[in-house]
């Protein structure tokens, strides 16, 4: 196969938080195979965690990911609570749900903005990130931090939501709802965006099940799973909301699913704030008995899974962490095959890995540099321009 070329993507980029290395094997413009290498940012959390106490571990796992910095501590404290058989008080459950959904909104807006950037719609990028800023300001008001909120502890939450903060949260939810509907309409009505996203990077239902993918990678492929509904925790079984399931499995379906999930998240936050119960925000945890516990929650990207084994001391014997991208990135191997190289960046981005790495690409042919990351981004933008001209 003399016409086969390798297009390496990654692994390092100053902006990305999870470096990955994608080796695209292409024939002409078509991607025929993909090899994935991870591990460039392996920090040994599972190794460090057994040396820390149960109170310290949430601070450690919070730093696994800067975007999902509520999902990991939440799943971790759920695992400890499952092991010890502790039920947090209702007010803590509601506050956990509110912070968790705020995180989903900011993460999905971040993804929509970057997806817009990748197909050459920088206006979408600027606008989506502008509305994300309101959410970060809410985080600062509620938790004191724009990132790494430190809200969860075994038995409850660390900070309360004050009564005077509630009207401000409602006001931001109104803005987010309005602007997300505007973005959704803009994405669905624009014929060029549609033709860039429709039918690209399709993951079928069978493939989604075989690779056990989760979250907004699985649901647009017709797999009806959501840990928030299936394994109720926090306040998710106390308020009404919907799970967004679509059947096409392409990047357009993944975009739709994320945009619609933002609207569902604002619904959950509104309902939680309305029925926010009074009372304490934490239960005292005296000891964690010997045994094991599993905690899982629906992060913006899918199911986060934490397993804790305790020997009765104040530290775990073993702490296993599995982030959703671990399952989702592996499915790129089937989603990207047969697509064109101009769609590759978008397809890899569609599972929402921490994917700034897709910018840092370089293609070598006979030892000479052929494409750089910027060139591939330009290829993607040129396709959009071509489509625009065809429509005009």
């Amino acid at each position, binding site marked *: 196969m003399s016409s086969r070329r390798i297009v390496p993507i990654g692994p390092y980029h100053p902006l990305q938080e999870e470096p990955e290395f994608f080796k695209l094997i292409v024939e002409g413009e078509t991607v025929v195979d993909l090899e994935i290498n991870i591990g460039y940012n392996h920090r040994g959390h599972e190794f460090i965690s057994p040396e820390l106490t149960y109170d310290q571990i949430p601070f450690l796992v919070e730093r696994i990911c800067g975007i999902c910095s509520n999902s990991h501590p939440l799943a971790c404290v759920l695992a400890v609570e499952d092991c010890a*058989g502790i039920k947090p008080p209702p007010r803590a459950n509601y506050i956990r749900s509110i912070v968790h959904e705020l995180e989903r909104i900011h993460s999905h807006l971040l993804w929509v903005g970057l997806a817009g950037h990748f197909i050459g719609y920088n206006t979408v990028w600027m606008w989506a990130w502008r509305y994300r800023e309101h959410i970060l300001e809410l985080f600062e008001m509620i938790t004191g931090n724009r990132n790494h909120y430190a809200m969860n502890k075994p038995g409850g939450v660390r900070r309360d939501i004050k009564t005077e903060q509630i009207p401000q949260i409602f006001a931001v939810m109104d803005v987010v709802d309005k602007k997300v509907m505007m973005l959704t309409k803009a994405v669905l009505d624009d014929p060029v965006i549609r033709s860039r996203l429709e039918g690209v990077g399709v993951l079928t239902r069978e493939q989604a099940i075989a690779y056990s993918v989760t979250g907004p990678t699985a649901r647009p492929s017709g797999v009806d799973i959501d840990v928030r*509904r299936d394994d109720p925790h926090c306040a998710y*079984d106390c308020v009404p909301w919907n799970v967004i399931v679509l059947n096409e499995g392409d990047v357009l*379906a993944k975009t739709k699913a994320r945009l*619609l999930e933002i609207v569902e998240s604002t619904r959950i936050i509104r309902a939680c704030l309305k029925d926010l119960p009074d009372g304490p925000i934490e239960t005292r945890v005296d000891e964690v008995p010997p045994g094991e516990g599993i905690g899982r929650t629906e992060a913006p990207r899918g199911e986060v899974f934490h397993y804790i084994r305790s020997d009765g001391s104040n530290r775990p014997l073993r702490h296993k962490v599995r982030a959703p991208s*671990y399952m989702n990135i592996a499915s790129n191997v089937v989603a990207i095959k047969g697509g064109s190289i101009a769609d590759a960046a978008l397809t890899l981005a569609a599972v929402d890995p921490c994917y700034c790495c897709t910018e840092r690409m370089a293609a070598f042919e006979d030892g000479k540099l052929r494409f750089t990351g910027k060139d591939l981004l330009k290829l993607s933008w040129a396709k959009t321009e071509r489509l625009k001209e065809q429509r005009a």
Partner: protein
Amino acid sequence: MNGLRLTANGLPLPDPEAVGRQPSAVSGLKVLIPEAEVYEHNPKRLYVTIPRERLTDAAKYLHRERGMRLSTCTGIDTRDGFEVLYHFSEDSTGTMYTLKVLAPKDDPKLDSQATWFPAANWIEREMHELLGIDFPGHPNLIPLLTSDTDWEEDKYPLRRDFERRSDAHEQ
């Protein structure tokens, strides 16, 4: 919008009569593997200990016949050997079924599930490099996390006898 399907939380509820007629995954496992030991931590967290020879049968039963999803696997270095937990999630009921198998320290081998189940591919590679458990039959058993580093072979950081750097400094 075409193809959009909404399901309210808790819905669609499984038909209670149909659930009653169908044997649970635990009783199915018991029929398949009579020596299986079941521990119920709570109704949503079930742990089933099985002999390692029957691992593939049990995993195939849970995934293919019960439609469960592999969440991940956990490998633990214990006094009796390497304990490997296969966490399966039954999303229709929100129950975690965990298969427990033990690989003795002098022969740390388990049948690879990646041959028929792509979801097990990466986690088996990870357990191979961090704990030194062998998975005969795995299509590509190369290191996952340390492939591009100068990490020494035969050094397994999640084993209990792994020499930590601080210990080495004190000596």
